[in-house]
């Protein structure tokens, strides 16, 4: 379809704003000529109806949870309740200026204060900051807390962060951004952290370890207590990437199994919309001893009223302008209040039930990377198929689109070749899981009977398979037909 710039027609812009009034002065009389641009920016000129049709057509070219099963591993693509959107859009929330006096935003500060406490309880931690804008920013915040702790204890030589080889790429990237060196720790044959390898890498240079639990393989780290103890003994702290909290909320708490600091992904566990890739929200929960370093401001309750407290001399400062992605906090608060303690726990239980059920349907034909009960997700290894038929995981993923399913996460975690990482979430029904499994099994047949069909998939999307090499080699990252 055309870009909006190709639909532009001079003089057709929507009538928008009347003149400022009879006393309007020319801009040139108010601002210095040297500051003014002479060529207008090349924005399109289209009518409102054209805009509506343009974006409606774009929406039709977008897979979404509302339209499709979306079992993207590690992303927790669960249903985004409509009530959350309605509430976040209330003028009493959406229209607030971030610098309004505290006495005019008491309702919102109460939500933030309460959400902090609910997240602390779910995490088994003492305190929470809502400021980080997304999971990776939560990681950065967490590592800066760890760094501050070591600096205060004159342990500046601690410059290494241990990270399992199955971790999200954000973990090592965050370590670098925080001024740390990444030391990779191997996984063992069962998919857990290899304790011997861990022991050999711990030293007086260890600042801490970043763990994802359940791991990206969808497995609970069975030795978690021993791991935390080893890291603590070596003088390090344990950070947990909370990407997979959906599997354990209400059943186990990171603070109870040795974690010092962690982040939540509100857009995963608490169903704030993913929005085509953001906004996220990555609150950080930690133990009391790290509280002095949390970003400012903290929210304090005094009697019945709430206020911002900027007076934290040891704070790492601010990680984001203003106070966080508030609209996401409101949605997450709404979601948790809808569920209550029972509902939160049931979400974990049915996320794990759905994942294990789907695995039970697929394991007859596919190689499950670590064939034991999983948590909220599991990883299939398509290496046998790829060897036999030449059909790779990428091809199967593309072919799933023709069956109207969004493919799982592919080629991650990196330690499984031809990986397909499947997370169905708790909000899907059994019929959908059956239909997805049937489609994947049919594609496995097609890989043998008609491999070309799979290798050239998709066949029913608005575009055929795209040339990504060309996109990277000769990058065109903007339209040149505007202006």
């Amino acid at each position, binding site marked *: 379809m055309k870009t909006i710039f190709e639909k532009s027609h001079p003089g057709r812009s929507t009538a928008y704003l009347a003149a400022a009034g009879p006393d309007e002065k020319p801009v040139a009389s108010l601002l210095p000529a040297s500051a003014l641009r002479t060529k207008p920016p090349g924005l399109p000129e289209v009518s409102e109806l054209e805009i509506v049709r343009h974006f*409606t057509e774009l929406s039709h070219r977008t897979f979404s949870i509302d339209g499709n099963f979306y079992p993207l591993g590690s992303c927790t693509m669960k249903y985004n309740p409509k009530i959350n959107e309605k509430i976040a859009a209330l003028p009493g929330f959406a229209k607030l200026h971030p*610098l309004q006096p505290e006495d005019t935003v008491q309702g919102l500060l109460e939500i933030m204060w309460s959400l902090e406490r609910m997240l602390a309880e779910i995490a088994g931690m003492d305190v929470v900051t809502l400021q980080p804008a997304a999971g990776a920013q939560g990681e950065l915040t967490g590592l800066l807390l760890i760094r501050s702790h070591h600096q205060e204890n004159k342990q500046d030589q601690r410059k290494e962060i241990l990270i399992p080889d199955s971790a999200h790429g954000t973990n090592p*990237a965050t370590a670098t951004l925080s001024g740390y060196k990444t030391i990779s720790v191997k996984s063992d044959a069962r998919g857990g952290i290899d304790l011997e390898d861990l022991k050999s890498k711990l030293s007086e240079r260890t600042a801490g370890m970043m763990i994802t639990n359940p791991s990206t393989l969808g497995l609970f780290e069975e030795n978690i207590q021993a791991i935390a103890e080893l890291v603590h003994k070596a003088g390090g702290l344990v950070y947990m990437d909370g990407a997979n909290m959906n599997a354990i909320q209400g059943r186990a708490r990171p603070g109870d199994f040795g974690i010092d600091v962690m982040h939540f992904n509100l857009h995963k566990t608490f169903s704030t919309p993913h929005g*085509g890739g953001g906004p996220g929200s990555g609150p950080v929960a930690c133990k009391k001893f790290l509280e002095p370093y949390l970003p400012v401001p903290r929210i304090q309750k005094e009697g019945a009223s709430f206020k911002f407290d900027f007076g934290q001399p040891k704070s790492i400062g*601010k990680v984001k302008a203003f106070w966080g992605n508030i609209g996401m906090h409101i949605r997450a608060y709404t979601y948790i209040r*809808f569920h209550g303690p029972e509902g939160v726990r049931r979400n974990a239980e*049915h996320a794990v039930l759905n994942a294990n059920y789907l695995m039970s349907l697929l394991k007859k034909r596919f190689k499950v990377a670590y064939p034991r009960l999983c948590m909220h997700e599991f990883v299939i290894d398509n290496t046998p198929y790829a060897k036999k038929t030449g059909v790779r995981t990428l091809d199967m993923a593309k072919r799933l689109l023709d069956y109207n399913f969004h493919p799982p996460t592919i080629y991650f975690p990196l330690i499984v070749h031809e990986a397909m990482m499947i997370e169905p979430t708790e909000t899907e029904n059994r019929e959908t899981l059956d239909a997805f499994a049937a489609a994947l099994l049919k594609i496995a047949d097609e890989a043998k009977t008609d491999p070309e069909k799979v290798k050239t998939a998709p066949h029913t999307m608005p575009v055929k398979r*795209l040339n990504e090499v060309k996109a990277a080699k000769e990058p065109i990252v*903007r339209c040149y037909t505007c202006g």
Partner: protein
Amino acid sequence: MDYIQNTPADAADMLKSIGVGSIDDLFASIPEGVRLQRPLEIPPALPEQDLLSHLQSLAARNRTFDAGRCFLGAGAYNHFVPAVVDALFSRGEFLSAYTPYQAEASQGTLQHIFEFQTMICELTGMDVANASHYDGGTALEEAVAMAVDHTERRKVVISGGVNPQYRAVVKSLFKHLGATIIEVAQVRGTTPVATLKEAAQDAACIVMQNPNFLGGIEELAAVSEIAHAAGALSIASVNPVALALLKSPGECGCDIAVGEGQPLGIEMNFGGPWAGFIAAKKEFIRGMPGRIVGETVDAEGKRGFTLTLQAREQHIRREKASSNICTNQALMALRATIYLETLGPGGLRRVAEVCVQRSHELAAKLAKVQGVKIPFQYPFFHEFIAELPHPAQTLARLQEKGFLGGLHLQPVFRDLRDHVLLCCTERNSSADIDAFVAALAEAVK
């Protein structure tokens, strides 16, 4: 309460297929000692009707000011949002999609981001833009990181006219990395360009904001010359609405332009979610953080869009990535895209012109009020400084009369003790301005 579809009968069948007896069995891998044996201590569930009432009552405990009576800016701007923005933004296809990793099934998301990148390039006069960033403050932090990497220098010069919140974000990160941050104080509303020359020696970058935090229009082109003469990069944080009128960072020789997209059809939301942007000259594209959408062709030669240059990113590069960011603000950038396409070049220019008009009208009218001074004469876009007796008390009185007055600058700008920063947008009519001036005249008596 929950959104689970499995009935008890479904669950029993599914457990059978798995080969276990109960849901508890599925959690056997969690060591017994760390299983939570009690219900979470969080408030009980609320059915949707009660939930809505509860949240409505919390919303009612926040005070919203009439659009025309908000004269507070300082990094969050009260612009009119056309209805079409909300209508299209709330489509479930956009809301509930994820990152367009599967390009063929995500052409909608990819194309609207491509259009966003294009318009950010047009506004900033830059060659390339990313798919958006958390916010303006973190976008600036990333631009500084690009400059530090590119120049391999560890000194950052930043104007005191940059939003103090943004400066705080830059400091949080770079003080840990051992970089030196030199702040060049603003004087009477703008940054004294001559003082930058010395500071620029051995610097990775000079960071300016335009219009600056105090509304002042800076001499960006002169700053870029000073930066380049010292081998530093020139970085500008800009307001995208102002760019309808002002010379773009590209025209002023800047290397990187960043900013906050909130003024473009994004509600103030008490500070977030918004959408930052990062744009740069093309030679910096491989050092840019975050997602970038590119144009390509499909197997039949037809145009399509895909995420590109992913070799910069954390999921490929891991510890060697250009940033740790693993998202953008796609949904918020979508609002900005719809807004810009709805307004077009004429509409956006009109918004900017009315902002200039109204803020100058307010300044002129305030100058005539007994006890109020407009102390500094500098060119400004839609914010300016006024000097009042007892600012805190005056602002409180204005609030009683339903006005959200300006920002008292003293806590951050120590030399501006009795000064407030005021803002006008197209939402403040001349009648609103007259009412505000009258209320202020009363309040300072």
